[in-house]
């Protein structure tokens, strides 16, 4: 298994569960999923990294490719349950300043309550 992506809707928030790794080989699948969500106007997204083994710059680029449109529509991408090594990638790039990162899924979802609903 390389990358499996499951999507659930919880309290008006779309939660993505990647299982496997996101690199240049699997990124198209990840990118397509994000773009389809945006096309369907899902602007409140949580990326639950519990099953995410690793992410390379290709995956970070996929997130960057949709974040502007999401934020322009009062949405955001929250991250949670990241392993130490995945968190480290965000940290090395300074992306911990760009994305809100939570230890668990529940606060990552409820944090959207403060945002205007679209």
């Amino acid at each position, binding site marked *: 298994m390389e990358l499996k992506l499951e999507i659930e809707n919880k309290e008006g928030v779309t939660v993505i569960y990647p299982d496997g790794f996101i*690199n*240049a080989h699997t990124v198209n699948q990840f990118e397509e999923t994000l773009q389809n969500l945006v096309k369907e106007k899902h602007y409140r997204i949580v990326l639950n990294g519990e099953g995410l083994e690793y992410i*390379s*710059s290709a995956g970070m680029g*996929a997130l960057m490719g949709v*974040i502007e449109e999401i934020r322009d529509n009062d949405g955001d991408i929250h991250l949670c349950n990241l392993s130490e090594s995945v968190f*480290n990638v965000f940290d090395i790039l300074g992306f911990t300043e760009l994305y809100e990162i939570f230890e668990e899924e529940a606060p990552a979802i409820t944090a959207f309550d403060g945002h205007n609903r679209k």
Partner: protein
Amino acid sequence: MKRFFNVEFAADTIFLKLATDVTISMCRLAGFNDSTAKDISLAVDEAVTNTIKHAYHFDKSRLVTLQFTITQEELIIDVCHTGNPISNTEIHLPDMEEYMKQYRKGGLGIVLMTRIMDSVSFGSNGNHHYCRLVMKRGRRHVG
């Protein structure tokens, strides 16, 4: 004493995970802790991806060689190819503040490589070109 290990594979992104797995094993052999080993394997992922993308333009019939050299002082990983060479002068690190303001999406691989490794350089020997990643075997990385 130097220890060498080489692995060669087709320039196909399907082998990226294998390349990172081999790198983690070599890092452990060189005495790096798990956290550093994972970081180094990510730098290798980025270097191999750059080779497949920019040196070979996704031509899967070409070959990439990973050459690991463990010396007393450092781990040297050469990502070798015979495609279009990349020189040190062509490498431009983006201004990350501007990068994030503009939500740009490319060019992060080289940033990761340079921030993880002690040194990253590019060179050629005739028609053989390489990206050299070096990590010192200091106490801070020991498992």
